């Protein structure tokens, strides 16, 4: 078999960090090659180098037996390399066909030749089983369909070597199967696929060859037949993979937060949340599963008080807080871990210590009087969060934008846990942090639960949901469609409820 991509001795340094340390990677033509590793292992950097987004400091790149140096993705595309990024790069208000040809429009004089584009896309779709309605606006599509557009986009540009950066992170199990079917189809047609992932069963299922990276080095190149998930995990972290299991029951009869039949209608008059009701007891973790965009965001905003509810009521430790402001609810103990830390959770230009009191700046312990903030107490608190939650920062005066994503997330999680909020509304608390820190966060959540925390947990990580929750709710189109016992449900079944396949 010929070699599609051969990277030899790739080294990439960032100020103070060795992101890639003499990495070797050999990808054979027509195979699905998985690259696994923890956050920060250097996977993304390596792929950016292959795709021409960054130049390596050392090492060589060979594509189809020809040595290459790419100074931009454009040059990588020209030799047949395409990449699907983790965050889709699509324009929501354009149609599928417009998105696909954007930047590579076939022209007829000064006009775009839609007919040619349409027939070429038709062929592509046919050949790979990637069926799509070309005239739908992208904004109306599901995540899985958007991903398919990204794949078609790079095929349309003539890619023979496809790089997919954590393609399954945003998909439910059923969609993952669909994706895998498409990938196998592409493989039969002779495409080479490089697949970045850290979900081990998926890697074992789809890959022909697996390269494991750890701390910027390539530590193993294995065949899936020869290894178990456990072996892979140990290669990745150098130790056992922790699991998010909670078992002993700590639920009390005190209610931390209760929502009674709340509904939310947005400005456009669309019902986003319909008659949702549940309660979270002190010492209980209630998990909310659902494909993103099925009302979880609206639920969180309603409980926090950012978005008004159009019906129903919200109760905090027994008080009806439906008419309370965000500040009043925060002062009554509500904690919040937002799904998007940059948007709702952090002041990026502000130092760590100021961020460590955000959301709690009116608490007595951070004030020296009614008017003044107690800088010293706040900084002590920040040092405490940094130490306890292993936030890697040069100091509490460092602006938060200088921290890596994982450390920013640990700061957000640590802030809420150190302040001892109750209840805590947490959306994707371990998103973007590596396996080691993830286990630490789970441990902290469990400890807080044992001490009486009522936690509403929204997550896309089904193992996390099943492992941590005492009760599982499934949301679909703004309604709660199922209440499940996490001890008896498998990720597959959960996926079926999430997509509405199970009734």
């Amino acid at each position, binding site marked *: 078999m010929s070699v599609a991509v051969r990277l030899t001795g790739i080294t990439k340094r*960032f*100020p*103070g*960090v*060795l992101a890639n340390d003499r990495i070797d990677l050999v990808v054979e033509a027509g195979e699905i090659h998985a690259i696994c590793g*923890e956050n*920060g292992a250097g996977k993304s950097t390596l792929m950016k180098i292959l795709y021409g987004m960054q130049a390596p400091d050392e090492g060589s790149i060979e594509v189809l037996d020809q040595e290459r140096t790419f100074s931009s993705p454009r040059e990588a595309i020209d030799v047949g390399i395409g990449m699907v990024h983790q965050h889709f790069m699509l324009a929501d208000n354009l149609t599928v066909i417009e998105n696909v040809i954007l930047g590579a429009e076939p022209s007829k004089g000064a006009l775009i030749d839609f007919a040619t584009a349409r027939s070429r896309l038709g062929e592509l779709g046919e050949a790979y089983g990637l069926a799509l309605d070309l005239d739908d606006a992208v904004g109306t599509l599901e995540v899985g369909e958007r991903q398919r557009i990204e794949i078609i986009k790079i095929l349309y540009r003539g890619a023979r070597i496809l790089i997919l950066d954590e393609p399954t992170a945003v998909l439910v199990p059923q969609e993952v199967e669909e994706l895998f079917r498409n990938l196998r189809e592409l493989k039969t047609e002779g495409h080479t696929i490089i697949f970045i992932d850290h979900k081990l069963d998926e890697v074992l299922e789809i890959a022909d060859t697996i390269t494991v990276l750890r*701390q910027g080095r390539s530590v193993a190149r294995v065949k899936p037949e020869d290894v178990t998930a456990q072996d892979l995990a140990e290669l990745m*972290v*150098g*130790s056992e993979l922790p699991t998010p299991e909670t078992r002993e029951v700590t639920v009390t009869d005190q209610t931390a937060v209760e929502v009674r039949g709340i509904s939310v209608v947005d400005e456009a008059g669309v019902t986003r949340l319909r008659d949702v009701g549940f309660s979270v007891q002190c010492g209980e973790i209630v998990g909310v599963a659902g494909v993103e965009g099925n009302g979880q965001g609206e639920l969180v905003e309603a409980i*926090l008080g*950012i978005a008004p509810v159009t019906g129903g009521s919200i109760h905090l430790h027994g008080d009806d807080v439906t008419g309370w*402001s*965000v*500040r*009043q*609810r*925060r*002062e009554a103990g509500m904690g*919040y871990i*937002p799904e998007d830390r940059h*948007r*709702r*959770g*952090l*002041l*990026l*230009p*502000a130092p760590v210590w*100021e961020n460590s009191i*955000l*959301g*709690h*700046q*009116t608490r007595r312990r951070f*004030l020296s009087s*009614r*008017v*003044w*903030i107690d*800088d010293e107490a706040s900084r002590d608190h920040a040092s405490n969060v940094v130490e306890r939650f*292993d936030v*890697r*920062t*040069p100091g509490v005066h*460092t*602006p938060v*934008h*200088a*921290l*890596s994503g994982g*450390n920013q997330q640990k700061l957000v999680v640590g802030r809420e846990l150190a302040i001892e909020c109750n209840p805590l509304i947490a959306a994707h608390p371990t998103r973007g942090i*590596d396996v*080691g820190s993830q286990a630490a966060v789970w441990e902290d959540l469990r400890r807080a639960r044992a001490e009486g925390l009522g936690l509403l947990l929204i997550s896309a990580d089904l193992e996390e949901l099943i492992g941590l929750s005492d009760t599982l709710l499934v949301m679909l189109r703004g309604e709660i469609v199922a209440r499940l016992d996490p001890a008896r449900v498998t990720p597959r079944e959960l996926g079926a409820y999430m997509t509405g396949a199970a009734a």
Partner: protein
Amino acid sequence: MAAVGLALLVAALVLVVSGADPLVAFGNIWEYGSRLETVIESFNRATPLYLSGIAFAIAMRMNLFQIGVEGQYILAAFFAAYVGAGVGSLFPPLHIAIILLTAMIVGAAWAGLAGWMKVTRNVHEVISTIMLNAIAVSGVVSFLLGRWKIESESLDTRLGDIATTGWFPSLNPIVELATREIKRVELTGFILVAALVGVAYHLIINRSRLGYDLRATGANPWAAEASGVPPRRTIVLAMLLSGAVAGLVGMADLLGDQHFYSLRFPQGLGFAGIAVALLGRNHAVGAAVAALAFGWLERASGVLEVRGDAPREIVTIMVAVIILFAVIAYALAQRRRRIEAAAAASAQVDSPAAAEEADT
């Protein structure tokens, strides 16, 4: 330092192009600018500039682009002058307090109007403050000045005089203790008020709960909202505070120099304040340095015109060039600091301790 050198070089070029000898011109500027009288004039000029800069900075700290200081201070000065003249003679501290309070209330109300329009009707503050500037200066003041003007021998249309009990004392006697007799000019006592406002600004913005909320909103309004900052109330509050300070801008001239409002009342201080705030990076001390620099450059370079070295336009260009270079130098320094912080943070991640923990 390199920036200052470059700025002087470019300024010299401008002078050469206009046909003046840069060395002679710089010599004249330095000689004139280091006179005690010029320095005092610079401080007098810097006082309203500083207040105007702080007024702009208050709103800027929460990302409100409040360019209505111009209208607010003129309207405030007009009403303050009218009230101040109307009350006759009073106990001096009371008289001054009434004038200042009127100015602050008028300024705050006018700015608050823009804030109110933003939170209720979502009118962008740039649009509303520009409109309010026009309404204040060309509308309200022009109209009422026509009604309330007094007859006088001068051709100037003006309001009545404020009685001497409403004059702010000059600091000349104190300065003279340390230096020598000052001729022609008086150092405005209002500079002390400006300094007080600067200190209050620093403390409130950087140390208080309110300041934290304000800065949080400026840094990230969505995160601030989720943290419990009431977005609307904070916008209106920031505008009120900004407007109150804007109201003080004209008081140095009104109480320390002119003692009445007329068509010749100084204009343009509101817009100049934007440059002061930007150059001073919305920082209390930075804005003070910027205001003094502006004041001095303006006063000292005026000599070129008087001595016939260069026309007024060239002097203006020269001053602008120097400011431009200062801004660029500051931006570069800021950038370097950011990069260093990021490098320090990633070095932390790469430390041996980090690697060990990932292994266990």
